[in-house]
């Protein structure tokens, strides 16, 4: 249990998707002009990461990994399908995003109104595929750990995008050098935020 919580906290702070690995930077830069949209996209990312990481974990451990097919038949134990993992992960992510979009539209129209336009964007967000690939790389031992990693990464991404959106809303009123306006200053602020987040590395989990 403690292990699970520490994976969660680590994924939010010291291994933050944005500040430590730069994943999902494209949408992070494009959709962080106002806090309201940033909250929408951030929530959608938490949602999708929380669903796709456990699914991809099952796929990895029961289909793709070397010897993972042994539960079907003893003779399949020598099969290693891990070279297919990229295409399988992206297929799972794209179809889950599509499915989630349809389910949310049908059963929770209010939530759909809030997340709707962001869901299709998320299929090609590197944070989602990156989460799946890190999950494969780090070989979590149970599905609970993988899920807590997924949710933690999502929360970390949410924190980062909401923080930068709040700063960008305020920075409109400051005198930024003309050539740095917009993109340039956003990069530099993200760098400074990253340095601040690096101080979490020293914490023992």
């Amino acid at each position, binding site marked *: 249990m403690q292990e699970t919580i520490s994976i969660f906290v680590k994924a939010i702070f010291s291994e933050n998707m944005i500040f430590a690995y*730069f994943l999902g930077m494209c949408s992070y830069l494009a959709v962080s002009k106002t806090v309201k949209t940033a909250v929408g996209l951030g929530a959608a990312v938490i949602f999708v990461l929380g669903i796709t990481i456990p699914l991809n974990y099952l796929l990895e451990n029961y289909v793709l990994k070397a010897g993972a097919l042994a539960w079907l038949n003893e003779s399949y134990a020598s099969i290693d399908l891990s070279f297919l993992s990229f295409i399988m992960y992206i297929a799972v992510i794209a179809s889950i995003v599509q499915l989630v979009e349809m389910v949310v539209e049908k059963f929770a129209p209010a939530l759909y109104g809030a997340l709707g336009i962001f869901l299709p964007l998320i299929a090609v967000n590197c944070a989602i595929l990156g989460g799946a690939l890190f999950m494969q790389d780090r070989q979590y031992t149970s599905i609970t750990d993988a899920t807590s990693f997924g949710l933690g990464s999502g929360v970390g991404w949410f924190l980062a995008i909401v923080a930068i959106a709040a700063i960008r809303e305020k920075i409109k009123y400051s005198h930024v050098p003309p050539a740095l306006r917009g993109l340039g*200053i956003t990069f530099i602020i993200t760098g400074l935020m990253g340095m601040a987040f690096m101080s979490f590395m020293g914490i023992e989990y």
Partner: protein
Amino acid sequence: MSEVVEKVKAPSEPLFSKKNRKLVTDPLSDNNPITIQVLGICSALAITVQVEQAVVMSAAVFFVLALGNVVISTLRNLIPGRIRIIVQLVVVASLVIIVNQVLMAYLPDVSAKLSVFVGLIITNCIIMGRFEAFAMANKPWPSFMDAVGNASGYAIILIIVAVVRELLGSGSLFGIPILGSPIPVEGYPNGTGLFDMGYMNNNLMVLPPMALIVVGVIIWIQRGRNKKLIESH
């Protein structure tokens, strides 16, 4: 890549017409995928600690983008509009699997350093962005030229950032010590080269946040030189 070139020799327009040349040169500066269009940042920042990784990554993106653009543009009239994203993802994913297998076989140490970032070429926004914006609407040869231009624009920024970070962060380029070595040898207790004179590596350059700041500075310089690119806010 030669067979691709032969396939499209038919058009009446000369292969290197002004329009086609512009497709290549535009993304190098005024329409750079990273600094102007803000695409493909994710992978650009993470793998710029060393020049070698940046070069391998650029080559991988070049391969995937060039072949992918040609494939998508050849199939553009056959792809139903509603499922085009999935089709594009499948094409990219298959090309990336090829790249990953080749890297694992021939450059295992670079492949280990790039780790998940090879896989992340799939969701590299440059690739999806060029498929959507260019290959879906143009013939294979211009699409190929467009891919060459954008992949080179990506590579330029990647390599500039990597040179700055490796030179200042580790005092070397391509792993070759340019500024001397900080490891003490006999007669040189502080290390060789500049390190003997008291120079020290800037370890901050190796850490992730500096990549963002270096790119920020590149954007600053570029927009300072070309006032047209300045954003209002």
